[in-house]
């Protein structure tokens, strides 16, 4: 589904990714872990098409199609979703209106009519219940005055609405208390199917207790230096990253 080959990228002439290779197949959950500054968020931004980063070398394929030259919205229309670490506040635009706009823009790009209002409402109700969101929450301005947990829950709500092929969750666990973490993880698990895939980017192992990965990759200094199964995450939790560094020398 998602295939990254020898990806090198930089921001303002500083090379951050130094040759990333990653294969994510439909139905899989991958976790990318690593210390601060390793390039985790850069990787997710680049997959989603953030124009502040320059891809110097390498390719990104989505279902066989090279997407690294596409605009962020075009990638979104093809099924790439990024849950932001810091979602942006948009005063005056409600959660409902924002997601309506997002869904209908995506449909427009595919040559479809707007989603009928009753269908939209039904879907909003269904997905907001999945994430245990209050009705009042839906009419609030997007992310304005939201707590950290509410912001993340809203990100996963949007993911549920947009039904992406590949969802990248960037530090979705940061700023969440244990209840919010459980709700968010539960939501992700329910949305998971054999037709989509999830990449969880995290600093800590905590979230992986709830969203169990098939593969764990360690990203250090712009490269994936080690891959393994879920047990690798536990080992990292216990021993930190230094032993991997030592192994590399």
């Amino acid at each position, binding site marked *: 589904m998602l295939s990254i080959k020898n990806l090198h990228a930089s921001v303002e002439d500083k090379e951050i990714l130094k040759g990333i290779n990653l294969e994510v197949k439909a139905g899989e959950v991958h976790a990318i872990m690593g210390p601060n500054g390793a390039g985790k968020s850069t990787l997710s*931004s680049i997959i*989603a*098409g*953030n*124009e*502040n980063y320059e891809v110097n070398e390498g390719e990104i394929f989505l279902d066989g199609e090279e997407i690294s030259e596409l*605009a*962020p*919205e075009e*990638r*979104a*229309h093809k099924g*790439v*979703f*990024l849950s*932001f670490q*810091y*979602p*942006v506040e*948009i*005063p*005056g*635009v409600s959660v409902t*209106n*924002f997601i*309506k*706009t*997002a*869904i*209908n*823009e*995506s449909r427009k*790009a595919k040559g479809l009519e*707007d989603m009928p209002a009753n269908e939209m409402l039904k879907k909003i109700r269904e997905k907001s219940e999945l994430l245990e969101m209050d009705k009042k929450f839906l009419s609030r*301005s997007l992310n304005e005055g939201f707590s950290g947990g509410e912001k993340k829950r809203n990100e996963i709500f*949007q993911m549920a609405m*947009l039904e992406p092929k590949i969802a990248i969750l960037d530090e979705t666990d940061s700023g969440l208390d244990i209840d919010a973490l459980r709700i968010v993880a539960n939501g992700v698990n329910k949305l998971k199917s054999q037709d989509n895939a999830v990449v969880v980017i995290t600093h800590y192992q905590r979230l992986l207790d709830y969203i169990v990965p098939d593969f764990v990759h360690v990203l250090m200094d712009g490269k994936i230096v080690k891959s393994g199964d879920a047990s690798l995450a536990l080992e990292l939790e216990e021993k930190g990253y230094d032993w991997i560094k030592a192994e590399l020398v």
Partner: protein
Amino acid sequence: MDLKDKLLSSYIAFEEKFDMDSHLHDVRNQAIKNFETKGFPTKKEEAWKYTSLNAILKHDFSVFPKHENAIEFAAVKKYFLHEIDTYKLVFIDGKFSSFLSSTTHEGIDVCLLSSVLTKPKYKPVLETYFNQIAQKNESLTSLNTAFAQEGAFINIPKSKVADKPIEIINFSTGTEAALMVQPRNLIIVGENAHVQIIERHQSLNSNPVLTNSVTEIFAQKRANVDYYKIQNDVQTANLIDNTYIAQKQESRVAVHTFSFGGNMTRNNLNFYHQGERIDSTLKGITIIGDKQHVDHFTLVHHAQPNCESHQNYKGIFGDSATGVFNGKIYVEKEAQKTDAFQQNNNILISEKATINAKPQLEIFADDVKCSHGCTIGQLDESAMFYMQQRGIPKKEARALLMYAFSNEVIESIKIPELKQRITKIIATKLGVKMGFDL
């Protein structure tokens, strides 16, 4: 002959129609003398440093339209807030259109300034209010005073609430090759009285128009006034709006100015406090492009203790558009415990667009709370990326962001249909159709 000379010689013919011994004639004479001395403002004056009238004044404006013009309602319906019932005062090329208007004398007066200027029964109103708060030394205001003939006269007596909003609309038909109009409005809102007013200037074709408008508003004790100005005129329209507001104790006046069009727009908005515990609000949204120019020149004169003023102006400038915000807050020595707040945020969406922003605080009292903030920036790139990531294309994402940026001001519009209308104009202005009513 330049426009100034033309106006001065027109005045001589104009004044012959009036009673030379009247109070009004004296007022006009003084006014024209002041205009004659000062002339049109130039960029040499500090208050006009960033706005030039030179190119505009080169047009050969007719000062008095030769024809009476009529318009079909259907042709101009869209300029009215037609979703709701309103009182209407409609002027076509400076002349009252009874056909398009809906006036009243029942309980409140929604009628014409010409009556106040000419009918003996209004003599006390004329002498007490007309030209009393307008600045007599300001040349463009003087010019209007000298020629003032028509406009809105609104009088809401003590404890009355206007049962529906009042629309004041000035159309120009373009029958003249170039037209100068000088509407004059007088609005008196009595003790405890309440009124909502919407004012609009609209050209119906592309012949140049210069509007030099003066509005005087008197808000008595505990009066409550909401005034909305919609400035979304065609590219060849020029507007100088001089608004003077006198507030008595505990009154509340809010003026919202929405500037989305026209070639040149200058808003001189002046608040004068004449009592304690007054609340003044000045808000505006400016969204312009091309070579449009909008200049907000505000003054809040705090003269009494315990009063508040709130200013919030948002500006979005594209193409080669230019904006000016000059906000003056004057706090006299007596005006202790003043709470004056001023905010002006601007976004430049093109490299050629400019904004000149100048807060001016003159404070002579020692126990006051005055703050001002001014920002000039570009659209937030991380917010753009966020929206694009959700599948919203650049153009729509930009529009949503600009809407969000203006939202604080939009939210304080008290007439829901007007709020909808403004958001629609913004969406049109930004060239997007949203999947929902913004």
